[in-house]
């Protein structure tokens, strides 16, 4: 362990901005991708359900 304190850890030897931007950006991209996929799945299934149930929707509209 090379960190004397928490602030030393966050400072990353003066490279904190670069190191943390890299890791946070990567984490955000991954979280965003998972959430986007989850929403896509919900939407796809909802559309499917509507298509299965309401085959007549188009003619009714």
């Amino acid at each position, binding site marked *: *362990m*090379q*960190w004397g304190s928490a602030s030393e*850890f966050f400072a*990353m*030897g*003066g*490279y904190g901005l*670069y*190191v943390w*931007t*890299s*890791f946070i*950006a*990567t984490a955000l*991209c*991954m979280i965003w*991708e*998972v959430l986007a*996929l989850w929403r*896509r*799945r919900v939407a*796809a*299934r909802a*559309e*499917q*359900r509507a*298509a*299965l*149930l309401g085959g007549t929707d188009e003619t009714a509209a």
Partner: protein
Amino acid sequence: MIWSKYSAPQVFYPLAGRLIPWFAAVAVLLMIVGLYMGFFVAPTDFQQGESYRIIFVHVPAAWMSMFLYVVMAIWAGVGMGLNARLSFMMAQAIAPTGAMFTFLALLTGAMWGKPTWGAWWVWDARLTSELILLFQYAGVMLLRTSIDDARRADRSSAVFALVGVVNVPIIYYSVQWWNTLHQGASVSMATGSKMAATMLMAMLIMTIAFWLYSIAVILARVRCVMVERESLPTWDEKPAAMSEAVEAR
């Protein structure tokens, strides 16, 4: 082992659904271990100080960006050869994740370049060819969305993906072929590793974690694509739930 059995959507769809949680769980676990090793076990680099720790996301992201492109091109090729819809759907599902990792490789590379080289970006062979890879992913995805007919979209984006695969060895060997500012490989199959054992271990664990993450999200995406494109029932849904919903209507 009859692999063609698994290519049937009715089999593949629920199988993928069952595998996703396992890949995701192991990916998260390995990321925690990898980050712990990367930040608390791996020593400070004697030349680059703490900024080198960016490699624990940069290198896995860059490797995945190239690897996923090759896998995407292989699925596209298989789709062309066998005229298999599921293969095209796999290629379609891989592209966004590959593009994301390419973007992250470029971004984290800039984060490393600024303190180390004094520049966010240089037109060096490695960086330029990786940027071209991002455009290739964008091209594959845009070509698909710009063509309405699904079969033509499959084929056009597959051809684009296959032609572009020549860029992958260019990226990989660019640091040897040209005098790049980007440093040469620290891990090589020929000469082994030039890194401290704990650094290498953290990087490899993160790479495996990114790999498993990619498998999980790609399987999740291909399931979405199957539902969207096939307009068939969601195969894992209990038939009872469907009939109940019909009755409720």
